[in-house]
C-alpha cells in the first residue's frame, strides 16, 4: 500500500459564490451556478461534471482533465484571476482560505483537489460594505470556520474592490 506524500492538508486561497437557502447563506461554485452548495461540517468532494454528462464516472481530479476543487497558492494570484474571470452581474464573491486534501494535482500557481473545506473566510467582493460583515458572520458561523483576518485582503485593497456593487 502506497504511503501518502503528505500527512497535512494544504492551505490555499479560493473564491466562492453565495446562495441564499432556507437554511441560510451557503457557499457554492462561481462557475457552476447549478452546482450543489458546500454542506457545512462535511468535506466537499470534487466530481468531473464533463464525464458525468457522458455517463462515465471517475475520481476527480484527473490528470489531463479540468476537474477538481480549485485553489490558488497566493491571494494575489486569486485576485488576479478574479479580476479577469468573475462573471459580471453584481453577485457577491466570498474569498478565503481553503483546506485541500485527497488526490491533489499541484500546478505552478495552485491546486486541483479531491476534497476541500473552508478554513477561513477573509472578505467579500462585489457586495455593499454593509453586506460584507453580515455575509462573513453568517457564513463563518454556518461553516464553523476561523474568524477571518482583517489583513487577509491586503492584496486586494489597492484595487478598489470590496465596495463595488457591479450592476447593483
Amino acid at each position, binding site marked *: 500500500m502506497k504511503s501518502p506524500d*503528505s*500527512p497535512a492538508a494544504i492551505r490555499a486561497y479560493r473564491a466562492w459564490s453565495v446562495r441564499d437557502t432556507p437554511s441560510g447563506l451557503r457557499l457554492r461554485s462561481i462557475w457552476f451556478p447549478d452546482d450543489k452548495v458546500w454542506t457545512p461540517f*462535511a468535506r466537499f468532494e470534487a466530481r468531473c461534471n464533463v464525464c458525468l454528462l457522458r455517463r462515465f464516472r471517475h475520481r476527480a481530479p484527473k490528470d489531463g482533465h479540468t476537474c477538481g476543487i480549485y485553489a*490558488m497558492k497566493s491571494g494575489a494570484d486569486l485576485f488576479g484571476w478574479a479580476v479577469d474571470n468573475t462573471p459580471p452581474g453584481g453577485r457577491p464573491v466570498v474569498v478565503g482560505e481553503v483546506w485541500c486534501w485527497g488526490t*491533489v*494535482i499541484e*500546478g505552478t*500557481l495552485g491546486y486541483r483537489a479531491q476534497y476541500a473545506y473552508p478554513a477561513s473566510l477573509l472578505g467579500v467582493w462585489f457586495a455593499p460594505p454593509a453586506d460584507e460583515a453580515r455575509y462573513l458572520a453568517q457564513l463563518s458561523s454556518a461553516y464553523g470556520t476561523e474568524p477571518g483576518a482583517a489583513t487577509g485582503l491586503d492584496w486586494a485593497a489597492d484595487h478598489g474592490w470590496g465596495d463595488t456593487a457591479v450592476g447593483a
Partner: protein
Amino acid sequence: MDIGETKRIIEVEPVVEPVPVAMPEAEPVTGPVPARLPEPALPAR
C-alpha cells in the same frame, strides 16, 4: 482558475480531516415541574 502547469500529483492524507465538528444544539434547560399548590379553602360563611 488557472493553476498553471502541472508539477506533480500527490496524495494528501491528513491524520484528522480539517472539517470542524458541529456543536450540538443546546438543549433547553428545564427543571422539575413544580407541583401545583392546592387552592386555598374558602372560609366557611
